[in-house]
């Protein structure tokens, strides 16, 4: 939008109509369109409204009496062109004007008067009593203000379709009500910061990355960008307008956590689940663990009008709430996020260590959701110390992750810029098929693979901040409980791929770390 752009003139007319209180519905839509499309339009709008507000404020300080309205006749007789319009008097001396106008009351005059009153009349005790009085009087004065307000019913542009808007009376909101906290984020692009309280009525769009929100009742919602959410007055609910959310409810108080989408309600019954909203297509809900109730808005958890889903089940509803055939539903839409969550016992503050999986899982016959790859939170990083790895050259290697080192090991030296990935390999619980295979491609040279717990510890230290790692000490349950057969990892000849052939019959998760050469920024 340039200075001479006709849109700018149009914008001016629309904003003027707004401040005069005569903006029609059609004009409002057009104004919104312009403001949405142009930052310059937003700036103009802000300055114009700021000026309008200042004029309202300044008007109270102007002590001079206005002249009779008919003296303005000449002003309106002349049809000014925009360029020729010049309301300023020629050669006026502002300093002189200020000095010679005895009625002019400036803002500083007002502040000085106010300060004087404050200095001489408002002791702390008086202030306290006045605060009480102010609170009592606020309602009364507000009523007076509303009753005495000017009814501006002028219509410059007729819009017969415009009807008075009904006022919806709801319970008054006296103060911001914190209903959730932003507990963690990763690579997030939005205007929030970790630790911030989130309030009822706030709506956010996460443009990039991940964010973890914990409700007052302890339900954890992990958002993956792009996503738009809104907090409600409930301490255990979130509106998901668009995007992807994974909910984790592991406390008694969080059971009943509600995710409301434009099409559907999803109520947690003690579980881990995912909800995906496509504003055009509808809503998809999938359960990873436990059970949820899904129904049209306002109907979840209500007997026949809702559907119960258990682990491994999913349901897709279109915009009208009708069920979408399974063959039309995206496969594994929640990606590795849900997979990793399935293996993490302690979620809050940890889940956001997971990043969007960059390595490409080329092929797998792993049971759905049981293989995932994540980059460590602060990766890439310069190693602060040497790190022992168990694979550093192409070939096949037997892994006994729990007890022994592999048959070959090496060292990635300190000061190497590395990307650190975690590969989680889940148990299949399939007695007939105890081994599974997968191939993973990375976007750089694999410097080494770590399977031994001691080397994991040394990597943690070498990476620097303790928080860089994925797991807390409580995560030991992820370690395998031993196995009768070896886990085999093969580093490809070009050093950018790993073939995994693992025994998956054990109860726990296996985990290996992969260090990849990072490109210099």
């Amino acid at each position, binding site marked *: 939008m340039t200075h001479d752009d006709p849109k700018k003139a149009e914008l*001016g007319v629309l904003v003027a109509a*707004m401040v*005069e*209180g005569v903006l029609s*519905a059609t004009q409002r839509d057009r104004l*919104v369109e312009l403001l949405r499309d142009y930052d310059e339009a*937003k700036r103009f709008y802000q*300055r*114009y409204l*700021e*000026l309008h507000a*200042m004029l*309202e*404020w300044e*008007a109270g300080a102007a002590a001079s009496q*206005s002249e009779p309205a008919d003296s*303005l006749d*000449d*002003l*309106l007789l002349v049809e*000014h062109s925009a360029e020729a319009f*010049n*309301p300023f008097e020629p050669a*006026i001396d*502002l300093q002189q*004007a200020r000095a010679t*106008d005895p009625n002019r009351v*400036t*803002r500083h005059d*007002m502040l000085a008067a*106010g300060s004087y*009153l*404050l200095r001489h009349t408002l002791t702390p*005790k008086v202030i306290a*009593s006045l605060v*009480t*009085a*102010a*609170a*009592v*009087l*606020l309602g009364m*004065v507000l009523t007076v203000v*509303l009753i005495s*307000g*000017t009814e501006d019913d*002028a*219509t410059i542009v007729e819009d017969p379709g415009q009807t008075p*808007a009904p*006022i*919806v009376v*709801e319970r008054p*909101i*006296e*103060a911001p009500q914190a209903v959730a906290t932003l507990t963690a984020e990763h690579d997030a692009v939005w205007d929030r910061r970790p630790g911030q309280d989130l*309030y009822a*009525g706030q*709506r*956010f769009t996460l443009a990039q990355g991940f964010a973890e929100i914990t409700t007052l009742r302890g339900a954890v919602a992990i958002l993956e960008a792009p996503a738009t959410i809104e907090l409600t*007055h409930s301490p255990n609910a979130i509106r998901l307008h668009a995007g992807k959310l994974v909910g984790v409810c592991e406390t008694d108080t969080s059971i009943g956590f509600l995710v409301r989408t434009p099409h559907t309600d999803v109520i947690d019954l003690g579980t881990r689940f995912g909800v995906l909203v496509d504003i055009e297509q509808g809503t998809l809900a999938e359960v990873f663990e436990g059970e949820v109730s899904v129904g049209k808005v306002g109907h979840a958890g209500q007997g026949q009008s809702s559907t119960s889903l258990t682990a491994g089940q999913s349901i897709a509803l279109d915009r009208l709430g009708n069920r979408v055939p399974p063959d039309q539903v995206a496969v594994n839409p929640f990606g590795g996020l849900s997979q990793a969550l399935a293996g993490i016992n302690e979620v809050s503050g940890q889940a956001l260590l997971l990043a969007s999986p960059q390595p490409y899982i080329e092929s797998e016959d792993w049971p759905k959701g049981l293989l995932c790859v994540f980059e460590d939170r602060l990766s890439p990083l310069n190693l602060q110390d040497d790190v022992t790895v168990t694979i550093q050259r192409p070939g096949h290697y037997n892994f006994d992750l729990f007890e022994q080192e592999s048959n070959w090991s090496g060292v990635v030296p300190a000061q190497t810029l590395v990307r650190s990935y975690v590969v989680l390999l889940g148990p299949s619980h399939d007695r007939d098929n105890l081994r599974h295979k997968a191939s993973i491609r990375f976007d750089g040279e694999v410097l080494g693979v770590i399977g031994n717990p001691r080397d994991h510890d040394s990597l943690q230290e070498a990476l620097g901040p303790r928080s860089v790692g994925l797991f807390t000490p409580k995560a030991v349950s992820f370690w395998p409980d031993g196995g009768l057969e070896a886990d085999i990892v093969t580093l490809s000849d070009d050093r950018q791929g790993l073939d995994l052939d693992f025994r998956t019959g054990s109860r726990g998760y296996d985990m290996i770390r992969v260090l990849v050469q990072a490109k210099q920024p």
Partner: protein
Amino acid sequence: MPIDPFLGRLLQPPPLGSAVSEPLGQSDAFVVQITTCQSRLYAYILTLTGDREQAREVLQETNLVIWRKAEDFEPGTNFIAWVFQIARFQVMAHRQKIARDRLVFDDELLTGITDIFDENDPYDDRQEALSDCIHAITPNHRNLLNIRYRDGLSVKEIAQQLSKSPNAVAKVLHRTRLALMKCIEQKLSGGGA
């Protein structure tokens, strides 16, 4: 100054028989900060609501919350940023209470407009510049502003008094505002009116 409702209400004596609470810890400096930010706060809220009556209602609610949360404010931090945050929450809460078709902006656009604001913007300088610019316009234009703003007449009422079309009145008001905006910018950039 009539549109300084909070200070005006503060200075009224408490009603007879009303309870007097313990001192809340507000310092005189805090009171001054609240009173001096009222114009800016109103401008901020008006920009977010786009509606004068809504803005006034939200301003009242915001002032009340500022008082209640006074002890949360950390002296030395950005007071304007703090009150803007409270105001933004109040605007959002207010939006929950009113009918959707009374809202000018959707939530996404509201966020975009909020982002335009800069708490460190020299608002006071702009206000001072406006005072000068108002003085520099012709008496007729100044009178029109007085009738519109100080007397609170709508463009239709002004038009009726003058037997002119509301469009003509609105057009002159709009151009006067544009001229004042230009004047303010020139003054802030070191030029004259």
